C-alpha cells in the first residue's frame, strides 16, 4: 500500500503527539500533578495510528485502560485530554472520568475502559448500529493481550462473526498482562490464531512497524466496509513504561527494554519515510517541535482551567434520592 506524503505526515504527527503527550504525563504524574491511575501508551503508537489512519467520523473505536494513544489517534483534542487527566471542568469528561475513562463519543471514541475486556462487546454493538442504520461505519476494537483471556472478548468476536458485523479487533500484545507474561497467561502460541475458531481472518503483525499496521488495518477495514465481517489483527508490541505509573517493572529486564527502545516505532517510521522521500529531516524536526508545543499548550490549558464544583458530582446521572 503506497503512502502519500500527506498520509505520511499525518502518521508521523499522530505518533509523535502520542509520544510527547505520554512522556509529559509521566513527568507530571511523577511530580504529583495528576491524581489517580495512569497507564501510558508510549511504545505502542504504531498500532493505534496504523489502524485509526483508516477511520473517519462515522467510525467508532473502543479502547482500554491504556487509552490516551487511541484518543489522540482518533482525533480527541489534547487540551481536553490533559484537562481531564488534571480533573478539570474543561476535560473531555468534565473531570468525571479521568485517564481510565477518557472518552469523546462525538469523535467516535467510546472510552478508555477500566475493565480489562470491557470494550469488545461495546465494539460489536457500535458495529451493529452501523449495520442497522446503514451508516457504512466500522468499529475498531483495541484490547490487550490480557483481555484476550476474558470471556467478553471471545463472546464479542463470536457475535461479530455470526452477525457478520463490521469490526476490526486489534489485539495490542505488549507481552505482559500487568506483570504476567503472555507466555504464561495465554495457552495459544499466537492470539491471532484464535481467529480461526471464529472463521475470520487473523493476522500476526509487527506492532512496531506502522507501515505493516497501516497495510493490514487497511485491508481489515475495507473488508468490514464491504460487509464481509470482522477481522482480528494481533500487533506484537512493547510498552515503554510500566503497567501503571509507579510500577517498578521488576518483571522485565533492562536489556529487554533497551533493545525495544533501540528499535523504536517512531524512529523506524522516520527512517522508512525519509528513505522513500515522503518526509525530510526538516519535516520530522518541525513535527517533533509542533508536538511539544501542542503538549505545552495542553498543560497550560489544563492548568488554567477551573476545577469542577463539588456539587457537579450530582449531575450527568439519573439521581432521584434526597
Amino acid at each position: 500500500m503506497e503512502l502519500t506524503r500527506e498520509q505520511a505526515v499525518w502518521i508521523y504527527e499522530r505518533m509523535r503527539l502520542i509520544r510527547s503527550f505520554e512522556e509529559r504525563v509521566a513527568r507530571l504524574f511523577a511530580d504529583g500533578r495528576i491524581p489517580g491511575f495512569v497507564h501510558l501508551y508510549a511504545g505502542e503508537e504504531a498500532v493505534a495510528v496504523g489502524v485509526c489512519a483508516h477511520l473517519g467520523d462515522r467510525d467508532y473505536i473502543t479502547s482500554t485502560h491504556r487509552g490516551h494513544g487511541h484518543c489522540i489517534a482518533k482525533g480527541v483534542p489534547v487540551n481536553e485530554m490533559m484537562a481531564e487527566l488534571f480533573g478539570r471542568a474543561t476535560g473531555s469528561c468534565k473531570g468525571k472520568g479521568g485517564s481510565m475513562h477518557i472518552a469523546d463519543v462525538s469523535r467516535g471514541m467510546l472510552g478508555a475502559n477500566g475493565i480489562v475486556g470491557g470494550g469488545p462487546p461495546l465494539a460489536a454493538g457500535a458495529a451493529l448500529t452501523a449495520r442497522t442504520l446503514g451508516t457504512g461505519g466500522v468499529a475498531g476494537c483495541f484490547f490487550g493481550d490480557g483481555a484476550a483471556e476474558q470471556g467478553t472478548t471471545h463472546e464479542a468476536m463470536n457475535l461479530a462473526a455470526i452477525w457478520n458485523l463490521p469490526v476490526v479487533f486489534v489485539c495490542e500484545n505488549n507481552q505482559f498482562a500487568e506483570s504476567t507474561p503472555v507466555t504464561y497467561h495465554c495457552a495459544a502460541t499466537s492470539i491471532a490464531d484464535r481467529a480461526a475458531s471464529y472463521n475470520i481472518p487473523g493476522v500476526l503483525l509487527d506492532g512496531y512497524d506502522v507501515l505493516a499496521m497501516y497495510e493490514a488495518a487497511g485491508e481489515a477495514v475495507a473488508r468490514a466496509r464491504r460487509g464481509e465481517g470482522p477481522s482480528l489483527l494481533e500487533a506484537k508490541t512493547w510498552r515503554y513504561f510500566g503497567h501503571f505509573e509507579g510500577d517498578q517493572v521488576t518483571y522485565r529486564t533492562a536489556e529487554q527494554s533497551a533493545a525495544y527502545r533501540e528499535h523504536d516505532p517512531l524512529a523506524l517510521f522516520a527512517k522508512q519515510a525519509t528513505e522513500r522521500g515522503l518526509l525530510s529531516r526538516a519535516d520530522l524536526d518541525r513535527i517533533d517541535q509542533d508536538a511539544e508545543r501542542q503538549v505545552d499548550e495542553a498543560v497550560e490549558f489544563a492548568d488554567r482551567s477551573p476545577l469542577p464544583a463539588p456539587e457537579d458530582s450530582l449531575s450527568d446521572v439519573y439521581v432521584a434520592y434526597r
Partner: protein
Amino acid sequence: MAVAVRSLTFGQAINEALRLEMERDPSVVLMGEDVAGGATVPGFEQEDAWGGVLGVTKGLVQQFGRQRVLDTPISESGFIGAAVGAAATGLRPVAELMFVDFFGVCMDQIFNQGAKLRYMFGGKARVPMVIRTMIGAGFRAAGQHSGCHYSVFTHMPGLKCVVPSTPADAKGLLAASIRDDDPVIFFEHKMLYDLTGEVPEDELVIPLGQADIKRSGDTATVVAIGRMVHLALEAADLLSADGISLEVVDPRTLSPLDDDTILSSVRRTRRVVVVDEDNPRCSMATDIVAMVASQAFDDLDAPPQIVTAPHTPVPFSPPLEDFYVPSVERVVQAVRATL
C-alpha cells in the same frame, strides 16, 4: 372521549408495546436468546420457532425481520454489552436477559459499562437501552431461575428499574422505558404472563417514577411490588369483611421511586406494610420502610411491617417454594400487627 380497551394478557401487552415502539422508531431492535428462535433453520427465515422462551416476543420477527429481531448465542456478556455499545451509538436496543438470575454472567456489561458510561463521560454519552428480564418464584424453576433481585439493580446508580403488575402497566411502562435515554431494567414476573386485564388499544406511555394506587383505603397502606400487588389486593378483600380498609400502593418503578405517593398515603393511614418477593436484607422492603421511618415517623401509629421471602435461595419442591413466596395470610397478619 372513550378510550378503546380490550382484554389482553400481561405477555400480550408486552408484545404489543414492543410492536408499537418498533413501528414508531426504526432504531428499536430486539436481541436475546430465542427471541425469535430457529435462526437459519430452513423455513424460519422470516418466522419464529419460539418467539421467546415463553412466547412473549412471538410474531415480531414476521413483521420486523431478522435484522431487527436478533437471535443471540447463549452469550449474555456479549449481547448485553453489544446492546450497550449500540445504545451509545444510535440504536434503542431491547435486550432480553432470559431470567434475572443470569445477571451473574453479564453484570460487568450492565453495571460497569451500561450504567456508568453517561456519568463517566461527563454526560456526553447516553445509553437508551432496555433489558427485559423474567423474575419470580412459582414455576418450580428452583434456585437459578426464580429470583427477583431487583433490589440489586435499584442499588446501582445509572440504572432505572421497572416492575409492572398489570397488563396495562406493562404496556405503558415498557413504552416509556424504550423511549427513556437511560438504561432501564424491566422486570417481568413469570407468574403474571397469563394474567388478563383491560389494555388501551392505542399508544400508551406511563411515565417512570409514578406510583399507582391500585385500591384506595384509609386503615393502612400496603406498598406491594410486582406480583405482590395481587396478594395485597386479595388481602384487602379479606380484611374488608372486618371493616379494615387497605390502600394498596404499587410503586411500579423502584428507581425512580415515587416517595411522595407512598408518604402521602402513609401520612393519611398512619400504618404501613411493605410486601416484597425479594430477599429481605438490603431490599426494597427495608428501603421503603427506612424512607417512611425517616420522613414520616411522627405520623405513624404503629411500627412498619415487612413481608418478604426468607433470606434463602428459591427452593424447588412445591411445599418448599410455596413457603418461600409471601402469602395472602402473611399480608393479613402483618396488617393486623399494625392495628
